[in-house]
C-alpha cells in the first residue's frame, strides 16, 4: 500500500453502525442481522420510532434488558435476550416470514463476506464445501426486504477485498444490496456499480480503490 494510507483513521464498528442508523427514518420497519448490524439499533434514539423486527416472531424489539429484568421467553434471532417496546407484538414463524418475504420490511441490514458491484451478496457460506452450511433467514431477508444494506469490514483480515466484481463465495441473493457501510467508506450500489458516498478521514479515493476489487465511482 502507498505511504499516504499511513495517516488514515478507519471508522470503528460503532461509527459504522451510527452512520447507518442516521440513514433510517422514523416509521421504517427494519430487520438487523446477527453481528455488527445489531449495533445499529443502539444509535437510533428511542424518540425516533423505528420498528425492529426479529425473524422469530418479534415485531417492535427494544434494547437488551438490564440483567435483573431478563424475560427468559423474549429473545431475538441471534438468541440474545431483548425487550419488547410498547406497541410491539408477537407472531408465529410463518407470519413473521410473511412480513419479510411479502415485502413489508422497509430495510434489512446484514453482514457479508462479499458484495459485488451488481448487488450480489454472499454472506452464508465461505466455500461450496462448507461442512455444514447454515443459512438461517439470510436468503429470505436479502430477497424479501424492500432495501438491503450491508455493514461489514472493507476487506477480509488478510487484506483481500470484499467489494468485488463477482462473488466467489456462494450467493445469498443476486442483485439485492443497495448500500454498503464499511470501516473505510459508505458506498451505494447503483446501475453504474459502486458509488462512493464518503470515505474514512485521511484515506484517498485511490487508496480506497486499492482495497476494492470492483471499480469505484463518484456520485453524479
Amino acid at each position, binding site marked *: 500500500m502507498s505511504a499516504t494510507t499511513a495517516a488514515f483513521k478507519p471508522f470503528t464498528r460503532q461509527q459504522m453502525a451510527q452512520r447507518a442508523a442516521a440513514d433510517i427514518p*422514523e*416509521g421504517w*420497519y427494519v430487520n438487523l442481522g446477527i453481528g455488527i448490524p445489531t449495533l445499529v439499533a443502539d444509535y437510533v434514539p428511542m*424518540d425516533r*420510532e423505528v*420498528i425492529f*423486527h426479529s425473524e422469530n416472531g418479534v*415485531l*417492535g424489539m427494544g434494547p437488551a434488558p438490564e440483567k435483573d429484568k431478563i424475560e427468559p421467553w423474549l429473545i431475538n434471532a441471534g438468541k440474545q435476550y431483548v425487550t*419488547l417496546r*410498547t*406497541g*410491539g*407484538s*408477537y*407472531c408465529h414463524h*410463518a407470519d413473521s*416470514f*410473511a*412480513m*419479510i*418475504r*411479502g*415485502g*413489508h*420490511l422497509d430495510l434489512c441490514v446484514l453482514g457479508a463476506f462479499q458484495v459485488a458491484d451488481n448487488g450480489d451478496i454472499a454472506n452464508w457460506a465461505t466455500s461450496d464445501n462448507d461442512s455444514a452450511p447454515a443459512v438461517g433467514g439470510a436468503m429470505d431477508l436479502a430477497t*424479501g426486504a424492500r432495501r438491503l444494506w450491508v455493514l461489514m469490514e472493507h476487506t477480509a483480515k488478510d487484506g483481500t477485498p470484499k467489494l468485488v466484481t463477482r462473488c466467489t463465495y456462494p450467493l445469498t441473493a443476486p442483485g439485492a444490496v443497495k448500500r454498503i457501510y464499511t470501516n473505510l467508506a459508505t458506498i451505494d450500489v447503483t446501475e453504474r456499480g459502486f458509488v462512493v458516498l464518503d470515505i474514512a478521514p485521511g484515506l484517498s479515493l485511490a487508496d480506497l480503490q486499492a482495497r476494492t476489487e470492483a471499480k469505484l465511482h463518484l456520485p453524479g
Partner: protein
Amino acid sequence: MINKIVQTMAETMSGIKDDSVVLLGGFGAVGQPNALIEGLIEQGAKDLTVAANNAGVGHVGLARLMELGRVRKIICSFPRSSDPVVFETLYRAGKIELEIVPQGTLAERMRAAGAGVPAFFTATGVGTKMALGKEHRDIGGRTYILEHALKGDVGLVEAWEADRWGNLTFKQAGRNFNPVVAMASDLTLVQAQHIRALGEIDPDHIVTPGIFVNRVLHVPYGDPAGF
C-alpha cells in the same frame, strides 16, 4: 412519533387512483368496512377492480359504488345476496366483469400476496369449470391447479381496536377476511371502533400488527345490522 391515526375521511382516502385493485374485508355485514366504502364512493376513483366475498346488497356500499359505474370488475365467491339487484342488472347488461373464485382460494390468494407467494397449487376446483385454462399438476398422487396471488393496491379493513402504530384486533366473527386484506394490500386503510393507547392491546393478542396497516380512522358505528 409514528401516528397512523388520521382525522378525516378525505385524508384516509387520499391517493387512491383509478384502475386500482381494491380488497374489502367483511363477511356479510360483520366486519364490513362500510364507512370506508362510503369514503371511496366520495373519493371518486373509477375503473376499479373490487375483490370481496360478496357483490353488494341493495343500493348502498359496494352496490352503490357499482351502480355509479365505478367498478369494472368484481372478484368474489358469492355474488348472490338478499338483494343483489345492482350487481345482477350490471352483469346481465355486460357492464361489469365477474371472476368467481372459491372462497378458500380467494382467502389463500390474498394471504399469498401478503406472504410473497406469487402462485400456489390447490386441489379446490380441480375437475370443475374453475379449473378451465389453469395449469394442472399431479403432486404426490393427487391433481392440483395453479392459482395466483391477489394483491390489492388498496385494502379496506374494519377493526375492533387500533392503536397509533396500526396494531389491530377484531371482534368475534368480525375477523374474517380483514387480516388477509391487510397483509395483501399496498395501502391498507382501517376503520376502527375503538382507538387504544399504544401498549393497551396485549402484545400476545394483537391479530394484525401495524406493519400491515397504513392509516386508521376512528369510526365507532356500533353493531353491524342487516345482511
